[in-house]
């Protein structure tokens, strides 16, 4: 097993002091689903946004430590952030389609990357929608507004949009928090299929979801990474007492 992502002594502080991270050390394996669990405000979203440097857009005061993806330092100021973001997709907690058609939402990333060939775009859009298990539902109305879809469909569209760029890593920030159980199940089944090809890091919207889909679990509490282990270990033999208390529902 190789470590796709290595985070060492990573700390981050926002200008207003909220949801900072302190000395996070974690080795995330490739082609697995790693879930970040813990109470709200613990730094999970901030942690996810390190990998595609989306924190660059936020009001960050200070960043320390190392983050390596395939042994490349992604915090390097000289790094090509655009290329990094194509390699590392993200799905947000609310479905956020762009104000375009269904087709354009999926082709957007490809077109931005300079793809002009219509056949390649069509093939890319179809492939991405199939992987997100949305193709059958939308193939007849690709040129309708993305907002004509239901919430669950919109979120799968957002997943397809990310997959279209054929990324290596997919970040998911509570992707099912706005969805009903049926839509949630669909997303979860897609993710389980996808982990053979992608490294997936997810902040699940509850602990049970981590139990259902994750291979590895990291427990975050107030900006610190408390424990990282396989899903079996975390749920049955947690080492840290705080992990034990969180898993058993003593706080949350």
């Amino acid at each position: 097993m190789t470590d796709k992502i290595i985070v060492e002594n990573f700390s981050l502080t926002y200008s207003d002091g909220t949801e900072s991270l302190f000395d996070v050390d974690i080795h995330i394996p490739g082609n697995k689903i790693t879930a970040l669990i813990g109470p709200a405000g613990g730094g999970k979203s901030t942690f996810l946004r390190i990998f595609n440097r989306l924190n660059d857009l936020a009001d960050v005061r200070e960043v320390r430590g190392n983050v390596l993806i395939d042994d490349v330092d992604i915090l390097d100021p000289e790094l090509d952030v655009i290329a990094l973001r194509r390699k590392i997709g993200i799905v947000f907690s609310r479905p956020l389609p762009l104000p375009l058609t269904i087709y354009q939402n999926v082709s957007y990333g490809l077109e931005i990357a300079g793809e002009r060939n219509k056949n390649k775009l069509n093939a890319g859009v179809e492939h991405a929608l199939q992987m997100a298990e949305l193709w059958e539902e939308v193939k007849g109305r690709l040129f309708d507004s993305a907002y004509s879809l239901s919430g669950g469909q919109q979120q799968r569209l957002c997943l397809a949009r990310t997959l279209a760029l054929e990324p290596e890593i997919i970040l998911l920030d509570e992707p099912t928090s706005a969805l009903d159980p049926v839509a949630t199940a669909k997303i979860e089944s897609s993710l389980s299929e996808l982990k053979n090809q992608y490294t997936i890091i997810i902040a699940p919207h509850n602990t049970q979801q981590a139990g259902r889909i994750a291979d590895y679990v990291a427990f975050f509490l107030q900006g610190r990474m408390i424990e990282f282990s396989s899903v079996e270990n975390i749920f049955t033999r947690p080492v840290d007492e705080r992990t034990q208390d969180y898993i058993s529902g003593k706080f949350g």
Partner: protein
Amino acid sequence: MTKIPASGNASPVLKQLIFQQIGFSVVTALAILTVLPIIAVLVYIIYLGAPAISWEFLTAMPQNGMRSGGIWPAIVGTFYLTLGTAIFSVPLGVASAIYLSEYAPENRLTRLIRLAIINLAGVPSVVYGLFGLGLFVIFLNFGTSILSASLTLSIMTLPVIISTTEEALRAVPQSFRVVSVSLGATKWQTIRRIVLPQSTAGILTGVVLGLERAAGETAPILFTGAAFFLPRLPNSPLDATMALPYHLFVISTQVPGMPIQIQYGTVLVLVAFVVLMNIIATILRSRARARRSW
């Protein structure tokens, strides 16, 4: 059995209801009152101006010391001035707004620029006229011309276009920008493909509001481009021109024995010009808004 509350309890409620009714009536009456002046003005102008409107009035040169004939050169002049103002102020204004809304860091320089724009909006229009005379007509030697007048009107129009465009850009949800960037778009790609198309409606509103004001202004063109009487159409941007608002000023105050229909006919044409621009803006805006899905 419970007793129905005595009338002594009911009367304060009744009182409140009466007060409420009076309150509603007063605010409704005041709201209607704001509509009255505009209706009165329009009816008055149409009543006095409509008899003057004819094909000849709209398309002929002024004759007999402007006491008869038409106002064609003034109509064309106002069209040219509005067009010229649009050419200078729209690209500059929209670009400035994009800079301020999307790129400018929150620092002292940005605050200074914003302060300047706010103050620019408060400068009396005659001051712009004098400034245009000094800078464009004399110093840059553009002479009394459409060019000088358009540039002067552009400066006056800029703050309106900048502030409404900036507002329209800021109304586009931040989440769209984050999503676009997360898909590997640069800032400019995000602006061009997502932010600008989504704010077209608001930008158009600002542009038309600004140009409308420019079309109706007299003072800024008084010294910079308007001709008292010029019975021919301008040949180049360096020609002076007649314009509807200034022509109106001239025939209302400077020409003795002026038939009143010609004055009100001119007013009617100017108002129609502005209303037409408004209608075009409304149509463009509702089309842009219909495409918007969030």
